[in-house]
């Protein structure tokens, strides 16, 4: 808004949003699915930051995770398999004023969309990326994904999967221009909400891996971690996660970690057990692609005319040179 007056008028007419303002339809996820916790955390985030629904966009690819835009009463784009990130980048490039979230899964992002994932981190556009990582293709009834643990029996790997799982954190932290990497688990909603809030506030691409339960196709996979809170280490920092008293009482395994420390972040990222939870890395000073490219510059007649004039000037000089040469 340019004017104080407009802002006052808008604020005077506004009523605070509630979670129900961001909810539409009935989620078609299985009972107990971790996606529900992510949806709730996102709706809380929208409410607490008073995001205007018509200026908020959720973009997704294909998979259980990618149904999330259907349940958000905002703009949404349910895209092609693996292509959530390029679509979101396009939206941000042409409309930098919108808040853009990306919902993607371990199959969508880390397998078919892996190239886009790497380059999206390198482009560092102002997007908040939620990687719903349940370590399985759930929508298509259980096939091994890049993060399925070694030996996972699935429809595509009936004798157990052959490869070690991919670690999305170490990969992300190895890409040039990485600016925000975090990891959370869906069963600690307080920390999930805090990390998503920090990811939203971060200006640049914030990549949040959310370890998520799939009670239908990977039942009990995370039970050992859920039953023993000491197998989760919470990364504390005044600029990162500060667990509430209730959470701190249960999850006593905590570690101070400065999100500016990339070397420490890489070391933590490599740890699978205990599961590190919190902000691993955050650097707000990494340049953003949409700014480098001046996205959203107004194409006024004056700007277009100036561009044409510049082109024609060059043409005139070259023709003159050609004439002189000829």
């Amino acid at each position, binding site marked *: 808004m*340019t*004017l104080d007056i407009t802002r006052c008028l808008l604020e005077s007419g506004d009523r605070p949003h509630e*979670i129900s303002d961001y909810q539409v339809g009935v989620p078609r996820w299985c009972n107990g699915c971790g996606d529900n916790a992510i949806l709730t955390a996102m709706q809380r985030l929208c409410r607490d930051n008073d995001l205007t629904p018509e200026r908020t966009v959720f973009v997704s690819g294909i998979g259980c995770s990618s149904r999330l835009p259907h349940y958000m009463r905002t703009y949404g784009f349910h895209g092609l398999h693996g292509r959530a990130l390029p679509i979101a980048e396009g939206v941000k490039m042409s409309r930098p004023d919108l808040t853009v979230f990306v919902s993607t899964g371990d199959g969508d992002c880390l397998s078919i969309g892996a190239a886009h994932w790497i380059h999206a981190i390198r482009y560092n556009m102002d997007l908040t990326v939620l990687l719903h990582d349940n370590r399985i293709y759930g929508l298509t009834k259980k096939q091994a994904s890049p993060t399925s643990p070694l030996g996972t029996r699935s429809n595509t790997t009936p004798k157990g999967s052959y490869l070690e799982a991919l670690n999305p954190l170490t990969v992300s932290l190895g890409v040039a221009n990485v600016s925000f990497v975090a990891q959370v688990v869906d069963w600690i909603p307080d920390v999930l909400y805090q990390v998503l809030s920090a990811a939203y506030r971060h200006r640049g691409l914030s990549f949040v891996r959310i370890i998520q339960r799939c009670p239908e196709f990977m039942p009990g996979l995370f039970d050992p971690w859920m039953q023993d809170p000491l197998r989760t280490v919470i990364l504390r920092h005044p600029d990162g996660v500060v667990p509430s008293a*209730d959470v701190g009482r249960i999850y006593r395994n905590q570690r101070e970690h400065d999100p500016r420390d990339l070397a420490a972040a890489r070391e933590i990222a490599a740890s699978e057990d205990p599961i590190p939870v919190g902000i691993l890395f955050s650097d707000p000073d990494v340049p953003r692609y949409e700014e480098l490219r001046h996205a959203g510059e107004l194409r006024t007649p004056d700007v277009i005319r100036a561009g044409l004039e510049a082109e024609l000037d060059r043409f005139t000089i070259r023709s003159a040179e050609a004439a002189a040469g000829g």
Partner: protein
Amino acid sequence: MASAIGTAGVRPALFAPFADLAALRYDYPIVLHDGDDERPAITALSAVIDDLLASEAPPGVAGQRMRRAVRRLEGEMRRMSARGQSGTLTELWATAAGSLGERDAQVAQDLTRARAGLARDGLVVDCDQSMPVRAVTHLWRREQRRKALAMRRTIDGLRLRLGDLVRADHLRSGGGRGEGGLRAGVGTSHEGLFDFALMASLLARPSGDHALSDTRRARIDRTLAVLRDERFFATREPYVFAFDRVADALTAHEQRRAAMTELVRSIAVAELELRGAYVEDRHDAYFDRFDATALTPADLSRFPDYLVHCPPDAEGADRAMIIDALTSGAPIKVLFVTDDAFGIGARLATTAMGLGDTFVLQASAARLYAVRERATAALRYRGPALVSVYVPASIDAAGAPYLVAAAATESRAFPTFSYDPSAGTGWGERLALADDPQPDRAWPLHELRYADATLQRRTETVAFTVADFALCDPRRAGDVGVDAPERAVPIEMWLDDPDGGVPFVRAIEPDGALRRLAVSADLVRATRRAAEAWRRLQELAALGRQPVVADLPDVPGPPAAVSGAAAATPVSPVASGPAEASPDEPYIETVRCATCNECTNLNPRMFAYDGNRQAYIKDVTAGTFRELVEAAEACQVAIIHPGRPRDPNEPGLDDLLKRAEAFA
């Protein structure tokens, strides 16, 4: 050069070392740079040369040679400027380089190489009578262009997007869906491929209503017309905002006030329209009554400011209007130039400081370059501003206005200060004297070295007072003309002890002879008045630096319940937890709920979600103990605790109690 200042050619004794200013590297001349980028708008010629040499001079002997050549060129340009030769940096460079290069080919080559690094051009201005108005106008213009660019972008953007609304409305209208409209939409390349008449008949009845109501359409058209025809930021026929008379500026502001209000109104309407937030029931009445009183200072500050240049020979009535203008609420910046440091005009800035909300900057022409950042701040300030500059009247062809102006600052006749109302609430924060020489003293002290009658070297510490400065001012010729008697005391000492004899100032003759000249009673009064004014400034600037009120006693912190992270987290309307629940009562650790819908699907009357969509037990009587146990077992994060059964006769209780033990 400055040999003929004041009466009979005498000069203040402390001027003795400054015979040829052009040989010195000092703040002037300055370069008023072209362009609106972030780099400084004004740079001293010496700084331009230093930067150039830092980037262009090669290492070693070649660099030393280039430095020598360019420094000679700088001196030549300074001399040309002092002679009144005007031109841009590149023009003066070319002329000076031409005369130097003629004599020495190597110099010409070095200068050509250095010239290649001269990235920015601009007008070269010496410290003369026209300098203050040129420099301040230059800064003001740049500031206005910055504002205009931002607003131009806003207005163009609003016009484009409102135009899109109108265009979309047209496409949905009968005209847009008709055969002609469809044909125009496709263009000529492929028009043969379509049957537009058939398409028009198919599209005759679109789904949904007409996009824009008539009143909304009329409102948008009206808004577009105002945005198109405004003249505040327009590139064609823009309003003029620089004036020579205060009254003209005020009249112009008054005449344009309605147009300004209308433009702000239209921008606000456009912004609401584009967000789809214009609610006629609420906003129509507001905008019907919209007038100039609705404009906020922040909104006003987006509009151009009026610059009034009040020259030394301005009529008295116009000068008298300055204070009126500064209090009128108009966005006005007054540049007041005076050539009389003893006159009433020299006290205008001190008076304006009392207005409270006016940004005031006072500086002699010699110090204007040093306080250029403050001048920019004055021009950026959201409110009225006064820039008061002393520049000596043209004395004669050999005069050095820079030296006289610097003497006005040095003598406290025209001290440098700025009063910035946005810098804080107290005098100490708002008033800054930091640009004055030796600001903690009553008068600046300097060492005067001379040879006495026996040719012995003598050194005295002397003050430079207003009476010394009077030697530079032809208007004061009659006040210091008579040789002081033997029993005379320097004026700075005499002011402390008026009974000590006749006050004198030290002066030198053109031939270098030192004289002691008696000070007239009138000049003594002027000196005393300046001393008092300076002391007042010192006192005001010191106000608020020391805490007036002793530190407040420690205030007890907020109660634990509302402090810290717990208060920052939104509190859910119902939150049950282990702390307040008895082991017999069922409860849910609500903050750990992962919203998986297991319990709420099992019995939505018993389990419900709170404001954060986390589960709690809404009504324990709405279900059975069995349901509590089943919910606890189904809960993915095991946060439901069934407690003890309420109905001792519930069937299968023994088995349920055993299953519930896992969730105690």
